[in-house]
């Protein structure tokens, strides 16, 4: 990989800068979101934009796409200063953004999506469907992408949908492409395909800004890296001349020695206490039947590729989704988990995969979000809420989990991702719940907050909690888990115990079909 990057670097030196930001500043109220940001991207360069959540990446992207206007500073494209009044101006200047959430109409096919609002018509004013289809086919052929142009894009995989977005950008003749965390929803194979396409576009002279939290990916494809911290540009570096540790240090402004807290000594098998025993679970009549055991004081990892059925299994276990067959024992007692209310009563809590759409009630305050399933605690017997007691308890938990919020009454939407995640975790800590399922607990949150959440999880298991952690991040699985259940196509194919937990072993079972082993 390294030599390739070096050639990219040499080539780039000869190429011209197509996008230049000079002294871009933006204030929201009293907060400096961006202060005097400079950024230059050359044709045929993949430029990484890196920074913790809240560092200013999204604001900068919104300025580039014409959604915000900068208070100060210049945007220079192809040598000419531009100012954008909206996304359409940005498109006209040759900029296209592929947002984290796709802007595709799920019921239209790829061609209809790509030409949406720019349909080609014939002399009679009717759609020239064949022309449009041919043009799209040409774009995809060039990139070596195979997509069924007839089916609705809602039925495509998220990787394919991303390719449709890229196709849309190219159809618009964009020569500056901004990719906002494009790999967040992709499997490793799909991400690799995307990288190949990005390299291909680089060869064609497209300038790209790539936003990602995964340092490995940045080293894999990017030529240069700009790091933002608290709205300030902390530096630009050639990928070839910097290490991951140095980058992380630039991002957080301090050296992170070790992301993961130490694992406790493995307990002898016969002394382990079983917290949750899933004797059998089958989601539909045709899906595989699984079973697993969760011990008190351990973190059991659910590893596997995206889409391998980990979340679905967890949701079925707690009764949030229906199941065809389920036999579960909680603390040794057979339990019926018909709905999440049953799970709560039996002391099982779930931290959902998507913080904003499944975890938080964004209109609620921090306190209201945390106490939503503890309200009975603040009432004598019936339904009355003792607000004073509620506020006191909330403040205590805020301190306990180290949440940074102005106060308990702040709207949760105003918190950073890491602190929002702590709100969802906190919901379960003021409870009798001792069995917690963490679904992608560190997705989309920054390095510093990640370390704090890992620490918190360890403190919980030391205090007698049992935790299941669903994670697609291999280092996290390897670094945090005492045992790992590996999923493949809906089935638990292997349960690894210490000291066999390592990245190769996990990846091997997750990607190799059992028959070929």
């Amino acid at each position: 990989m390294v030599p390739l990057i070096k050639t990219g670097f040499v080539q780039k030196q000869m190429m011209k800068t197509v996008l230049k930001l000079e002294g871009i500043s933006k204030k929201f109220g009293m907060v400096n979101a961006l202060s005097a940001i400079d950024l230059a991207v050359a044709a045929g360069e993949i430029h990484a934009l890196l920074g913790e959540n809240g560092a200013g990446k999204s604001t900068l992207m919104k300025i580039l796409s014409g959604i915000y206007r900068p208070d100060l500073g210049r945007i220079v494209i192809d040598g000419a200063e531009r100012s954008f009044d909206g996304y359409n101006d940005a498109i006209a200047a040759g900029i296209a953004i592929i947002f984290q959430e796709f802007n595709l109409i799920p019921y239209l096919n790829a061609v209809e999506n790509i030409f949406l609002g720019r349909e080609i018509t014939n002399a009679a004013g009717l759609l020239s469907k064949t022309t449009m289809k041919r043009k799209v086919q040409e774009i995809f052929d060039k990139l070596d992408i195979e997509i069924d142009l007839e089916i609705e894009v809602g039925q495509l995989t998220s990787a394919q949908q991303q390719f449709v977005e890229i196709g849309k950008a190219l159809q618009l003749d964009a020569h500056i492409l901004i990719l906002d965390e494009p790999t967040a929803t992709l499997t490793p194979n799909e991400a690799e395909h995307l990288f190949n396409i990005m390299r291909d576009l680089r060869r064609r002279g497209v300038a790209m800004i790539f936003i990602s939290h995964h340092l490995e990916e940045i080293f894999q494809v990017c030529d240069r890296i700009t790091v933002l911290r608290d709205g300030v540009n902390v530096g630009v570096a050639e990928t070839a001349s910097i290490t991951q540790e140095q980058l992380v240090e630039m991002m957080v402004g301090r050296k992170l020695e070790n992301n993961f807290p130490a694992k406790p000594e493995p307990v002898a098998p016969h002394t382990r206490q079983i917290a949750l025993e899933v004797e059998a679970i089958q989601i539909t009549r045709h899906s595989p039947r699984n079973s697993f055991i969760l011990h008190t004081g351990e973190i059991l990892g659910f590893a596997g590729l995206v889409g391998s059925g980990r979340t679905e299994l967890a949701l079925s276990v707690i009764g949030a989704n229906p199941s065809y067959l389920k036999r579960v024992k909680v603390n040794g007692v057979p339990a019926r988990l018909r709905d999440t209310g049953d799970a709560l009563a039996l002391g099982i809590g779930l931290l959902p995969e998507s913080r904003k759409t499944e975890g938080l009630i964004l209109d609620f305050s921090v306190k209201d979000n945390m106490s939503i399933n503890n309200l009975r605690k603040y009432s004598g017997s019936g339904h009355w809420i003792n607000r004073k007691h509620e506020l006191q308890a909330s403040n205590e938990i805020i301190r306990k989990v180290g949440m940074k919020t102005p106060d308990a009454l702040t709207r949760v939407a105003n918190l950073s991702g890491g602190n929002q995640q702590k709100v969802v975790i906190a919901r379960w800590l003021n409870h009798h719940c001792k069995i917690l399922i963490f679904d992608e607990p560190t997705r989309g949150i920054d390095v510093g907050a990640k370390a704090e959440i890992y620490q918190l999880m360890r403190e919980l298991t030391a205090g007698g909690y049992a935790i299941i952690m669903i994670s697609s991040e291999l280092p996290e699985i390897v670094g945090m888990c005492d045992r790992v259940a590996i999923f493949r196509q809906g089935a638990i194919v292997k349960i690894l115990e210490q000291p066999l937990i390592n990245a190769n072993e996990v990846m091997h079972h997750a990607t190799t079909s059992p028959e070929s082993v």
Partner: protein
Amino acid sequence: MQPQVQNLYRPKGRGGQFRIAVARWLPGPVLFPSIGLAVVCLAMVAASDTFLSVDNLVNVGRQVSINAIIAAGMTCVILSGGIDLSVGSVMALSGTLVAGLMAAGVPPPLAIVLGLAAGLLCGVANGFFVAYSNMPPIIVTLATMGIARGLALIYTGGYPIDGLPDWFEFFGRGHVLGLQTPIAVMLLVFAMVYVLLDRTAIGRYIYAIGGNEQATRLSGIRVSRYKLLVYAISGFTASIAGLVLTSRLMSGQPNAGVSFELDAIAAVVMGGTAITGGRGSIIGTLIGALMLGVLNNGLNMMGVSPYLQNVVKGVIILLAIYISRERSRIA
């Protein structure tokens, strides 16, 4: 080490706690409706000499009461993210049932209880289909809207039921503690809904479901139960309104309450409650209902033609909601 949490709402300096408390009350859903009500009232005072007379204000209160009582239940439904189109029909069904049973010689207290129970039952039916069969509320309540109206017409044969005992006019024309009964009933209903929404766990769940149903479910709250409850409340308040109306008219009218659901929804939304749920307040609904009532009353007194009144009312509703939208977009 973490980027500082931005909180644009956080008041700076001394008196922060107090201002947080004020901020939680005023700029929330209640400030703008209050201003709206004040503006409408001032306009009426300027346009009419008699608007401010005690008689007229009491009159406004009584006219508002029926819509407000329905809107109180509607507030719960809308806060939970739903909608109830059946209230006008349920009101007619309950009202005619009370009248019909009394006219048929059923002991009046029992007739009243049965009438209210019928409304409650309609609400439970709505809630059951919405909460447990996952059907969209707008469709379910559209269906029950037709069914309840049809039942009222079948039961009465399409004719008003008269000949009610004299004392029954207490609910529509009588007085309690110096207040007109409809106003007293309205205040009681609002007090109860206020306590429910603001002081109990159930109220918090209703807001939470409207704010993010899936998050609430995954927190271990039995969402379906509370969704059923809000429709039951709405059916019940509609039947209370039916009782008051029947008493005021001293007649069970099968065609009463046509399009009352729209007035109730307008009152809720003009009171600052988000039509998508999760945000709003019952006090806002009271203000919204008063705003509509003052408008009706004022336009009548000014002698504006009823046809034009509809247009004026529609424009003002649009304007009120537009302003509250713009405000929430800025915030």
